[in-house]
């Protein structure tokens, strides 16, 4: 738990709540604004609430876009931070970090189907994963987003909002949560703890 955790400030509005959630778990996160700040970090979290284009611009300006792909420590993207791990986002037609294959697509409103997807939804486990250890199939998680990825090969948990969407992804050291673990009660705290304690 004492391994240094860096939290990237990519202009995301949930920076404060992610930091507090980590502190509740006993971690002492370091907020970093440029890639130099990642030196010595044993874990990196990329939170994000906002729009893809300005966030990617901040990641490029801060040198993160070059450094993150070469990093060898676990990386967790949250919400927009998870979306930026993929190759491209329809939101502003922005190129992402390209750490995971796939495209982030806009959720389309339909009768009875509101966009943004906002509120508590159930996680459906797709395959065992260290990040989801101790989290039951059907556990509730808090989502707030208007864009999403389809559940692909890297998807370990999905949620259903009109159609299935990727809720948690994991591929080697790269992981992402579309929902907000920092605001998802015990389920979210467990995911963050799993990430902090992973070998």
């Amino acid at each position: 738990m004492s391994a240094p955790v860096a939290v990237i400030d990519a202009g995301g509005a949930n920076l404060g709540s992610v930091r507090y959630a980590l502190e509740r778990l006993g971690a002492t996160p370091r907020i970093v604004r440029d890639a130099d700040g990642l030196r010595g970090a044993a874990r990196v979290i990329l939170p994000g609430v906002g729009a893809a284009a300005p966030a990617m611009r901040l990641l490029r300006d801060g040198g993160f876009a070059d450094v993150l792909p070469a990093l060898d420590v676990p990386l967790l993207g949250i919400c927009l931070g998870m979306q930026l791990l993929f190759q491209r986002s329809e939101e502003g037609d922005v190129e992402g970090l390209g750490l995971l294959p796939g495209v982030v697509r806009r959720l389309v409103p339909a009768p009875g189907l509101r966009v943004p997807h906002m509120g508590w939804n159930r996680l459906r486990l797709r395959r065992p994963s260290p990040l989801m250890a101790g989290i039951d199939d059907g556990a509730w998680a808090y989502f707030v987003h208007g864009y999403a990825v389809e559940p692909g090969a890297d998807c370990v948990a999905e949620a259903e909002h009109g159609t299935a969407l990727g809720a948690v992804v994991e591929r080697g050291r790269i992981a992402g949560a579309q929902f907000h673990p920092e605001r998802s009660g015990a389920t979210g705290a467990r995911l963050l703890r799993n990430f902090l304690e992973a070998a």
Partner: protein
Amino acid sequence: MLSRRIIPCLDVRDGRVVKGVRFRDHVDAGDIVELATLYAREGADELVFYDITASPAGRTVDVAWVERLGRLLDIPFCVAGGIRSVADARRVLHAGADKVSVNTPALERPALVSELADAFGRQCVVVGIDSLRDDDGHWRVRSHTGDATAMRASGRATLDWIGDVQALGAGEIVLNCMGSDGVRAGYDIAQLRAARAHCEVPLVASGGAGAAEHFSEVFEEADVDGALAASVFHSGEVRIPLLKRGLRARGIEVRDD
């Protein structure tokens, strides 16, 4: 499937929670942190804090208590009250709030809604609408409702304003039906149904909850995404675990773990 949200609303004045009847006669209802953590523990899906003195007094929200809540709460919360600019919203969001809600300042300067959506994404931007049926039968928006002496009619038709704020970038709408607020006779189903038909984003009902059956009624009859209430929770008349058990028994999807 997305669940329906139960949202206790805490009206905040000078750092304390207050409750009112028809927007007047506020009395003290307790400490913010104490009530917020109680509701979170009992299964509230989200909390809304309205700094009811901020808009009429022309000042912005005090972030000290927002930060205290941000450190403690592990469920989402929204802060409203006197947020007039992107800078105001940033202070509140960075202090730990998940969403900001704008009401009077959006009426005074509608471009604020787009500025907030551009800066933080529309999912952070809630527009609160205080609405009252006029003698001619039309629902119209009221502003400066935190203080009975400062309240005024904006002249805007409520349903038009619901359309406008979505076009501007609102990610959620809280419709507070003032005619039913505080009288505990049930939500204003007719108005909420009309609003629902104009609303693609999540819609939260506010004003009128007095008993558990009012919640099932508003979800079933008006198809709202969330139901907000204050005094019925503060008084202990409706307890959230029991409320949710009842909703689930009626086939209404709620978070219940």
